[in-house]
């Protein structure tokens, strides 16, 4: 799919996103990085078709893709059990919902309500819900933020395993460069005001990548040496 964005502004405010073109190949794993307030979530919402009030065009090859969207918050229905929350998006198919919950390690929690689950578990339910429908386009908004390290590492490897098996197109919004380099094929940096894409790298190491491995560390350091203010959204020249 191809997004040709001219401008996105919210009512009564300046432009958040400026001229920007983003092409997504089928089965591509893209990570979007940028400082907070750069419009990462807004961009994701535009890609999801949730936000249509922008100037520009969103083009799909053929029909619009089946979506999976992991919001920043879990967004579970409090009156539905974990399994009902997952089966809600697959026409009440309980078997598939159970399988999806099992794949995120929550088989025992299927009958519990969201308020009986920890924050990390709620995220996993939301991930199960995002994956259960076999999405063609999977949008992830900071999915691992505020999770403890082992939990986050576990979910990352589950996500990667799913991507390698089912090959959906993935857009991952993150502010963690190491995470982005570990998971994605292509890392885009958002910055400026109004924001645009300022830089792009394509990590080509084999999966699964070791976040503390040599190759990744080298890429990480080279990026930050060349563009020390990249994570603030500025491409400025380094040493």
């Amino acid at each position, binding site marked *: 799919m191809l997004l040709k964005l001219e401008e996105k502004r919210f009512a009564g405010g300046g432009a958040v996103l400026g001229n920007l073109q983003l092409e997504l190949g089928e089965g591509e794993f893209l990570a979007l990085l940028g400082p907070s307030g750069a419009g990462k979530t807004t961009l994701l919402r535009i890609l999801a078709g949730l936000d249509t009030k922008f100037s520009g065009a969103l083009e799909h090859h053929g029909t619009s893709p089946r*979506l999976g*969207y992991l*919001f920043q918050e879990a*967004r579970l229905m409090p*009156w539905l059990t974990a399994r009902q929350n997952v089966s*809600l*998006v697959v026409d009440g198919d309980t078997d598939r919902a159970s399988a999806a919950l099992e794949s995120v390690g929550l088989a025992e929690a299927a009958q519990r*309500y969201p308020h009986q689950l920890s924050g990390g578990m709620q995220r996993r339910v939301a991930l199960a*819900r995002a994956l259960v429908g076999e999405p063609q386009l999977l949008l992830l908004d900071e999915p691992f933020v505020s999770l403890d390290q082992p939990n986050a590492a576990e979910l990352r490897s589950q996500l990667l395993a799913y991507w390698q098996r089912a090959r959906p197109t993935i857009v991952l919004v993150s502010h963690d460069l190491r995470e982005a380099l570990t998971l994605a094929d292509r890392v885009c940096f958002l910055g400026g005001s109004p924001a645009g894409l300022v830089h792009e790298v394509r990590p080509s190491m084999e999966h699964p990548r070791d976040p503390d491995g040599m190759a990744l560390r080298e890429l990480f350091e080279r990026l930050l040496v060349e563009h020390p203010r990249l994570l603030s959204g500025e491409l400025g020249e380094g040493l």
Partner: protein
Amino acid sequence: MASAATSGLARLASLAGFFLVWQLVVWIAAPALLPGPIEVFERLLSQWLSGDLPTHLAVTMARVFGSFFFAMLLGFALGVLLGHSHRADLALDGVLTVALNIPALVVIILCFIWFGLNEVAVIVAVVLNKAPTMTVIFREGVRAIDRDLLEVGTVYGLSRRRRFLRIYLPQLYPYFLAATRSGLALVWKIVLVVELLGCSEGLGFQLGVFFQYFDITGILAYTFAFVVLILLIEGLLVRPWERAVLKWRA
């Protein structure tokens, strides 16, 4: 469930205590204007067996449920409209405030004058009295709807129908419960007044007759029948519904 059984017992005990005290007061002080519970029960039984009480009760219940249904329908429709449309809310807010505060008696009298002494007048009078509070309840409910959850339905391509039934409506269930509770309580009272003023059947009419004859036993017997009915509706309909709907909060 031990706690439920205990609380049920406690409720029963407090009721029994009330009747006991009442009977004792009547025995000891023998007040002229207060018959004892035994006398009231006897009258209740004879009224029931004669068929008078069931007839009046059935007529009143039909009016209560009919007007409750229409008040709910109107209140829900208006509440959803006002909750979603700021413009409609501005336009109707003044009318709503007036409707909320106009005395029930005024509406009842006007309805009888305009529509005549018939069932239409009864239903319209009760609906006009009750719908405004329901509108306010549903307006609050609609305003509290979590749009983030609705977005989940959009993203995952749920049909309109499914989004409405599985994501929108469940968020309003607590408001349906509140509207039912406050609604039934008020609708009963208004229906009785309407019947007292302009009907020739129903509990309110019969209470008026008893009043004219100064028949306190009759009044208490009918009141008692009425209270039992309300407790049955609460216990057999509203409470189980509430439990089913709010199960997740437990």
